[in-house]
């Protein structure tokens, strides 16, 4: 029962926050229809940044835990930490002159921001695979690639999924900064509200962003429950 509650808590929270965001629409706030449209754009933008970040983080994590890739580990760690150290707002601001307004700068910022959680989780998960299971796989006649696919990744998967969830939630929450570079996101009402001193718009944008982040977390949790 408690496990079930933990599994669906983020979705309930998302629903509550969505109500907070939508109700003011009837009282002179940001129109509900436009808010939903922005939410769709926001989700798309977040995925456009998080999916490549996840793939890159996974690939790097697998690479640096292979025998041949081990020397690359410090460089990969430093890259991921450095990429995360740059605040997304700064990344967006710096990318605008090069990439122009629109989705580009935000995708780049989300990509940089999302690599580290996935890379860290992948490396930790692969290193937590019992060494004797891997040794046995090789001794029984798996090729190194076969051992990775059939033994290491299945055993590492629950921990990797934790990292993917963190990256997705971070990405969805952070995508709001895209509004600064002219991308239509749930950050748009926040920026509008700040410019016009309308706190209702700020509240709506913030609540809607949080609702979407919790919904993403809830969806992943529902698809693949957290480890016991």
């Amino acid at each position, binding site marked *: 029962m408690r496990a079930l509650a933990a599994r669906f808590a983020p979705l309930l929270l998302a629903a509550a926050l969505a109500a907070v965001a939508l109700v003011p629409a009837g009282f002179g706030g940001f129109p509900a229809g436009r808010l939903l449209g922005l939410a769709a754009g926001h989700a798309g933008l977040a995925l456009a940044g998080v999916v490549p970040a996840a793939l890159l983080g996974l690939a790097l994590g697998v690479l640096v835990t292979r025998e041949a890739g081990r020397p690359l580990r410090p460089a990969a760690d430093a890259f991921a930490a450095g990429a995360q150290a740059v605040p997304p707002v700064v990344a967006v601001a710096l990318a605008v002159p090069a990439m122009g307004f629109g989705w580009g700068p935000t995708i780049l910022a989300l990509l940089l921001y999302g690599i580290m959680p996935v890379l860290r989780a992948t490396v930790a998960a692969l290193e937590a695979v*019992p060494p004797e299971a891997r040794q046995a796989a*090789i001794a029984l006649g*798996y090729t190194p690639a076969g051992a990775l696919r059939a033994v290491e990744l299945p055993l590492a998967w629950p921990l990797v999924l934790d990292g993917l969830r963190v990256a997705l939630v971070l990405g969805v929450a952070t995508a709001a900064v895209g509004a600064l570079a002219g991308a239509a996101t749930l950050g748009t009402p926040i920026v509008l509200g700040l410019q016009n001193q309308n706190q209702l718009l700020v509240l709506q944008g913030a609540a809607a962003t949080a609702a979407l982040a919790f919904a993403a977390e809830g969806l992943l949790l529902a698809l693949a429950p957290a480890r016991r």
Partner: protein
Amino acid sequence: MIRFEQVSVRFGAVVALETVSLAVEAGVLCTLVGPSGSGKSTLMRLVNRLVEPAGGRVLVRGRDVAGENPALLRRSIGYVMQSTGLFPHRSVAENIATVPLLLGWDRPRIAARVTALLALVRLDPELAERRPAELSGGQAQRVGLARALAADPDILLMDEPFGAVDPLTRRELRAELRRIHADTGKTILLVTHDPEEALELATQVVVLRDGQVVAEGAPAALVAPDAAPFARELLGGGQPGLRRLSLLPASAAWEDAPAPPDAPRLPPGATLADALSCMAETGCNVLGLEEQDGSLRLEAVLAQGR
């Protein structure tokens, strides 16, 4: 079946094996015994290319393993490890089916083989769907043995297979292994640091020390008075004479003269050590054997110890 020719192995600057030559014939249960760091595991791991020689050749079934595909070679050789190495995310049946699956057997054939193996290692078929974490140490080790035997390899490598289980289970597993060896006639290479285990299981014992073979032969010969001193010391357990008698069957000193009617009788399969123990307990210096004529005299028993 397996030949090592002048094999040397180095790990960095450390010499693990130095020009070792050894032959293990088909059907032999060969135990490799020695102190830690003597190179016994390394010697065994050369056979399926988990270790590569720095010099010399390793021949398996008459062919140099250096020319074989490592993964294919390993699928043709059973492997059992001390920590069992069972895959925690797979059921007992799936673990056992590992190599047949790699070899591309069809489903019905694999299912039949898994059932047969559970019976061979005397595991309850009910365990087939369990995960390794739900097994006792002895059960897990039996699954490990079944997995190694799954594709019916003619060679079996065992790396301290009974080191991590309690003494009672260990004795049981040893008996199972002897039975399976007798039933299947496989060539078995078994690494152990337990001298008693090495002697009890083997038809051939190889004693290693500092990367070299210091003695090799039948178990009883390696604790005889003329055996290499290191082997005698390592394997003899402080009482090499008694150890030797425990390795020889009572029939070795059997005589046709009938035993006195009131003489104690030994069960079939008794060793000379059993006979000596019986004599010490009863004070009789002549014994008979159940269901057989003839007798065993104290002098004849002692003569075998020399």
